């Protein structure tokens, strides 16, 4: 379905708001299901979500265990003497945290169904100053850039003969500790160089700028935006 990027941005805001406000696994599952349906409609490669979530798997597992152990309530499933270890309430809270992360990540994937230039055009046509629109777009690019830098470094380290998977944990932690600062510094340096090259190509030479293309709302956009906003308000108020 061809929707204006601004419509997709509204949908992302609606889905993310629901994912952040909802607290039960059932509700969050519904938000996730709706998001997956939308991603399918927008021809997003669903298998790619796994790739995006992979780096967060250990964090999700950690949060799940933490929430399960420390959120009280419900029926006790496992206890050590008088101390309840696992309760149905704890498991629900753990599942909710994990589902929330997955739902928000999946909703954010909708941003990848249009280009970063369309994102800028969308914001600018919503009267956001163009400097801020570019800044937000480039900031969004910073995370993938950092991820890319990390992948490059991990490849480069292995190509120097270091078997990252086989070295002992202590050595591995020490290696990563030594690599973190150079990688962060390198990414910052690249971001700074990008700002310099943008300025060298006349960025901010004038208080306003023109654009090669323009986004235009279609009839379907005028229907989808109010429908999503209305449904979200009703669901939150309900």
């Amino acid at each position, binding site marked *: 379905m061809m929707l204006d990027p601004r419509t997709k941005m509204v949908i992302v805001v609606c889905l993310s708001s629901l994912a952040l406000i909802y607290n039960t696994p059932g509700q969050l599952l519904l938000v996730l299901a709706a998001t997956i349906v939308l991603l399918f409609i927008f021809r997003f490669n669903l298998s790619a979500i796994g790739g995006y979530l992979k780096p967060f798997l250990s964090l999700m597992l950690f949060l799940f265990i933490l929430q399960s152990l420390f959120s009280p309530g419900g029926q006790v499933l496992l206890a050590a003497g008088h101390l309840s270890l696992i309760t149905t309430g704890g498991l629900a809270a753990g599942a909710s945290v994990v589902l929330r992360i997955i739902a928000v990540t999946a909703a954010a994937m909708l941003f990848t169904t249009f*280009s*970063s*230039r369309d994102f800028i055009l969308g914001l600018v046509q919503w009267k956001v100053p163009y400097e801020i629109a570019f800044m937000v777009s*480039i900031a969004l*690019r910073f995370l993938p850039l950092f991820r890319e830098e990390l992948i*490059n*470094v991990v*490849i*480069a*380290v*292995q*190509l*120097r*003969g*270091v*078997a*990252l*998977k*086989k070295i002992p944990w202590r050595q591995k932690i020490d290696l990563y500790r*030594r*690599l973190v*600062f*150079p*990688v962060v*510094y*390198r990414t910052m*340096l*690249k971001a*700074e*160089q*990008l*700002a*310099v*090259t*943008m*300025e*060298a*190509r*006349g*960025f*901010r*030479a*004038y208080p*306003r*700028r*023109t*654009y*090669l*293309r*323009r986004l235009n709302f279609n009839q379907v956009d005028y229907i989808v935006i109010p429908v999503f906003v209305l449904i979200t308000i009703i669901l939150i108020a309900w």
Partner: protein
Amino acid sequence: MKTVLVKDLSYQYRPGGPRILEGIDFQLNRGEIVVVTGPSGCGKSTLCCCLSGTTRHNRNGIITGEILINGKNILEMSGSGLALEVGMVFQDPDTQLFSPTVEDEIAFAPENLCLPPEHIQERVDDVMDILGIASLRNANPSQLSGGEKHLVALAAVLALDPPVLIMDEVMSQLDANGKQKVAIALQKLRDAGKTIIAVEHNLENVAFADRVLILKDGKLVDRQGDGSLVRVETLTREPSPCPESICPPCQPFLEISQAAFYYPRKTCPAVTGINLSLDKKHITAITGPNGSGKTTLTKMMIGVLQASEGVIHLEGRPLSEYSLAQVGRRIGYVFQNPDLQLFCSTVAEEIAFGLVNHGCQPAAIEEKVDFYLDYFELAAYRNSWPMHLSQGEKQRLAIAAVLVNEPEFLILDEPTTGLDDYRKKLLEEYLYKAARLGTGMLIVSHDLSFVNRIAERVVVMEKGRIQSDSRQGGECDHDA
């Protein structure tokens, strides 16, 4: 009035630091093409940054002297205002390209100039036609080959239409066709009254220039005018008899059978139908136009990219059975962009990294690090941050950091980028020595004189396929 007037220019990156530029004086006329050359690390890129005003972003930098562009003192101008006077194409295209498509990238500058959309489109189309990149219009710049990225970065600045254009080593990674198109474009710009300053190591690439400025240790040591460009000695190796006739067939080290690779969301393969056998006794070179799949193929050979079709064997075992580290211990790989493989905090640490992790004795590590620092003339930067080196120095460091591990086979992707003739010669000598000691080698390069001198076998790729496979001195059998 002179278009560019530089008076007693000096620059230090930090107070108390060395003077990277010292007492630079020169002037350029309207409609003149000037080449700036000199050994790597001599201050060429710093000079470009001073002229384009981008050194202002280094708060610790100290600039003295005067730079007038069309009568305006650029040291007193704002950065974005300066862009209307000077356009600069930086050495590393990866730090300049950020748009989702080539068209958006090129449109960025005219959009900043507030041109109406129809004029922006006109400029984008014109620049694409001049540089022959119209077919890349909807491509994502980050997924292009190194040479294509350079062309897009140049196009993005040409679209700004500045009176003065500065190019920091744009030609080095272009194929012959790309170089020719850039040469024609620059000559047209000169005729239109633009002033062009081009940094180049290989003066053959810019034989059409009017003058040459030679920098050494931050000072202008020579100026050559009236079209009398420095003659570059073109050394070509005596054609050797086909090695097949003088040595028995060698055991293949890397063997590629019917290999193909598709990038995600691409219907056309980046490489396809590749059959290639490489041994440890010869130096092989891969050449071919930009975007022909050379880098993709080498990345497949080391397992960074998994072949979509076909199979690659490393000494008889499928490459998929090796981990990246196992491949890395046997094959040393030098990336096209040295930034991708430098990750340590100091130059010495970078060279020692592999040795430390292989458990070598500290004394042996020290000795080897000293040798490579001296050989590649990096000793002065022993404790410097690798990212602060010039592009040529980074290239030397990346090569040293791989060679120090003494791999059985070397793959070098555009190793001569950023290297001056003297350093190319040093690298060449080292590679010869390594080859004589039994290290196999595959070199990807556009530098045909380097390839002719060093390679015994030349594989030419085009549109993802092997077009020819010949030994220096005669055609040999191949499976392509």
